């Protein structure tokens, strides 16, 4: 099974003696020559976000409501996979493919929001609105970073992401302020995705270190702007703001929902069956 991690006996033993009675083992990094730990982790977080969301959107290919929507979702997916290519190549000496196709689920650092299943079209758009709005503000801030790689990446990607954000907002408004059925589906999609918002603003030790070095933006600094921006879209869509459920965290540490393993199995099985093939 491609995406199941290999659990060694000593790791099981270690987990049993852990103070909390068996948390996940330490995730292992894959890079042959890891950059400084926090920076490397940050590249994976952004790269995995884009990769996993790009793969999810790719699942709509041939199934979207209308040829135009099919193209539109594929365009967004390709933008995201382009970003992931840059980020993962940077993290692994120009071999981003090794990170994309030969890592197991516990080593992925994407947020939980992007791995959520597509559901219906409304839920896909809800996920896109929540993520692209965050990504847009984040990349806008990151385009001021003193780090040349991150700055360059963000300056290019922020234009792509501005479009994704606009597209998702347009669809949210169209569906929310549409028929009774489309409004109910849009509200349902937002409700499903809403509990994954707090993770986007979580600051752990890795991020704290990078923020202290002033390399990357502090997401807590733009949470108010983010929620206000969503509020504006929802008001125009004539939808209420969903209730804040218990937040679900952990993706940044490799603790994923059951959905990611299935996504990786589909994405990784060909490169794992034919490891050195080119196409």
């Amino acid at each position: 099974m491609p995406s199941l991690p290999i659990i060694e006996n000593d790791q099981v033993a270690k987990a049993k003696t852990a103070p909390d009675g068996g948390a996940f083992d330490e995730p292992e990094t894959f890079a042959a020559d890891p950059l400084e730990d926090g920076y490397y982790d940050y590249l994976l977080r952004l790269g995995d976000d884009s990769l996993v969301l790009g793969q999810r959107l790719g699942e709509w290919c041939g199934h979207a409501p209308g040829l135009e929507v099919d193209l539109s979702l594929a365009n967004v997916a390709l933008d995201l996979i382009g970003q992931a290519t840059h980020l993962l190549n940077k993290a692994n000496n120009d071999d981003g493919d090794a990170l994309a196709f030969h890592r197991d689920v516990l080593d992925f650092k994407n947020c939980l929001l992007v791995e959520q299943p597509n559901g219906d079209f409304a839920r896909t758009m809800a996920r896109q609105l929540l993520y692209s709005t965050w990504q847009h503000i984040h990349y806008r801030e990151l385009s001021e970073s003193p780090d040349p790689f991150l700055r360059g990446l963000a300056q290019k990607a922020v234009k792509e992401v501005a479009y994704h954000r606009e597209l998702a907002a347009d669809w949210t408004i169209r569906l929310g302020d549409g028929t009774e059925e489309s409004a109910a589906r849009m509200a349902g999609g937002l409700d499903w995705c809403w509990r994954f918002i707090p993770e986007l603003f979580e600051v752990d030790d890795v991020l704290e270190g990078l923020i202290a070095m002033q390399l990357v933006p502090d997401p807590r600094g733009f949470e108010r702007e983010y929620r206000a921006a969503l509020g504006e879209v929802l008001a125009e869509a004539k939808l209420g703001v969903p209730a804040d459920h218990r937040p679900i965290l952990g993706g940044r540490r490799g603790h994923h929902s059951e959905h990611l393993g299935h996504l990786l199995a589909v994405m990784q099985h060909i490169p794992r069956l034919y490891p050195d093939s080119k196409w």
Partner: protein
Amino acid sequence: MSAKGAGGGHDWPLWEVFIRSKGGMAHRHVGSVHAPDPKLALAHARDTYTRRQEGISLWVIPSAAIIASDPADSGPLFEPAEDKVYRHPTFYDIPDVVKHI
């Protein structure tokens, strides 16, 4: 948008798409898209017709807004121009620097 439209997009209205390929050129008709509203029509036009840097400006208009000539009237409408050769500006020398005429 009806429930049927939500399932397949078949009853979304049709929009005609025009692209200006570069500054100074006129917008040219390139095709059409289906979309439920004007903003999404523009998005669909962008995603369908400008993937390969085809333009710098887009117009969309509802296809229903076009007033079209009736093909059955093509005789009276167009044939009288056939023998009016003097209407072509071919009796003048056009300087090489003048483009797009």
